[in-house]
């Protein structure tokens, strides 16, 4: 059996000067090619966990870190985020704050220049990631002139140019309009399905995340309250409600129907599943979906 790509082992962390543990005894593995969704209300520790996985914690943000995080065999306590950049890419919530340069191509090239790639290889990778993220026509534009979705795609392209095995997306759609949200998650899905990139997705909109994740974790006050498959996760409506996590609309409809006596053994969580469920109910097919 192959070892996991990310191993979070009994991880606890509290920020310098804080009494409260932002993370407590967090333990989970992520396998290569997997999409892991992390859910939880604000202040649950999601962003802290993301920053532990690429070494920003404890190197940039200091504090008391116990337990360990291993990423592709590297312990993040001993490896600086700059050295993990070619293994883990990270996309932050607010696209505008993470741009360094004033032209899309310079922004994408920045990371590759940092790791010392020759200009011809930078050009080659640049073309590839622009194509992957469908940004070819914006190559020379300033990122600030792009739409929210395009900006996040630039951020994704900048991380991808370093060819990481893992892409951490920390609420990448929270400031985007519906079109932008779909654009970003479609790219994430493609990167995972076509290029086997492992994705850690923190997302408030379970509706969007449900379609892409292989496994989900619910964090509450820094502790893992639940981890399991999407059907186990979205089937646990009480937990999601208790933790303030919105249900996908199709799950909510399915849950409502089941409470009214419809024979639903497994709640749907994607549009396709919801559509199949309604179709079966409308055709009087009372067989469980």
């Amino acid at each position, binding site marked *: 059996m192959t070892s996991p790509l990310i191993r979070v082992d009994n991880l606890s962390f509290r920020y310098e000067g804080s009494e409260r543990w932002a993370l407590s005894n967090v333990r989970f593995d992520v396998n290569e090619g997997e999409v892991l969704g992390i859910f939880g209300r604000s202040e649950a520790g999601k962003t802290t966990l993301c*920053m532990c996985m*690429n070494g*920003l914690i404890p*190197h*940039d943000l200091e504090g008391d870190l116990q337990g360990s995080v291993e990423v592709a065999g590297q312990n993040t306590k001993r490896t*600086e*985020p*700059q*050295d993990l*950049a*070619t293994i*883990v*890419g*990270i996309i*932050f919530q*607010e696209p*505008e*704050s*993470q*741009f*360094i*340069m*004033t*032209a899309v*191509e*310079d922004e994408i*090239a*920045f*990371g*590759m*220049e*940092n*790791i*010392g*790639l*020759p*200009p011809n290889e*930078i*050009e080659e990778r*640049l073309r590839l990631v622009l194509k992957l993220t469908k940004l070819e026509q914006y190559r020379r534009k300033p990122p*600030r002139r792009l739409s929210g979705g395009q900006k996040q795609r630039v951020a994704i392209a*900048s*991380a991808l140019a*370093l060819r990481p095995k893992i892409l951490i997306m920390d609420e990448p759609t929270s400031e985007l309009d519906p079109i932008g949200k779909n654009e970003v998650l479609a790219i994430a899905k493609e990167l995972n399905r076509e290029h086997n990139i492992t994705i850690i997705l923190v997302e408030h909109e379970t509706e969007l995340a449900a379609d892409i994740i292989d496994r989900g974790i619910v964090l509450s006050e820094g502790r893992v309250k639940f981890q399991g498959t999407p059907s186990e996760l979205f089937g646990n409506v009480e937990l999601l409600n208790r933790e303030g996590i919105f249900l996908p609309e199709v799950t909510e409809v399915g849950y409502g129907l089941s409470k009214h006596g419809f024979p639903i053994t497994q709640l749907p969580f994607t549009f396709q599943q919801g559509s199949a469920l309604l179709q079966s109910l409308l055709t009087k097919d009372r067989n469980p979906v």
Partner: protein
Amino acid sequence: MAYDFYVARQTVLHKLSPPTKVVFLLSTSLLALEVQDPRVNALLLVGLLLGALSLRIPWRVSSIFFRSGLIVGIALSISWLFFSKVGEPLYRLWDGIYIYDLAIPLTLSMLFRLWTLLTSTLIFVAITQESEFIAGLRKLKVPYALCLTFALVLRFMPLLIEEYNQIREAQMARALELEKIPLLERMKHFMAIIVPWLVISLKRVSTLSAAIDSRGFKITGRPRTFFHEPDVSLADWFLILGLVGLFAAVFALRTWMGYFVIVPGRL
């Protein structure tokens, strides 16, 4: 540059290499400060104004510099003309307040210097994109960490101003009075803008720092490559040499032979 001052044209000035543009800005600005003689300053200013005119810079851009030049120019003229006690009293304004004969050329010199600095900057921002500015500095052997700092300032300035304006408008929409109140009250009210603005800005800095580290940036210990290496032609090198030489010559003439000076010992 920040605020989109760049004017996309194919003029000779645009075609200069990035380091030449940086040297142009530095040398013309320093020349203006070196020379005290208003006749020479006027000559430099006229040359730059002609250069600026040839660029056909939109009024949207040039008006910002024009307005700044006018407002600061008036303040500068008043302070230098009425409060510079150089030479002999020429005209009595009030009891004890005179206009001195050498204050007039000195004031003119200061005005021309100011306008030269502004015109030189206007030309520079109209012909230079941010990336060229950074490439120019780099080519002139400025350490990359410093170039990156400049890049970040240019990158974030418009964003921070935009955010300031957004907070200001949001607070005014919530009946925050900023205009028809005494100065002290106004300053207090400004805190309602400054505090959230600072909090947002600090948060941005923190994200930016994380983004820079996550993209593998190290100040030392790892050789860095550059995607764009600016081309510097022979003509550019000659121009750079000429500008530096001119600056050095004027400096030598002023320091050791007293040229371009009206009032020794003054700026």
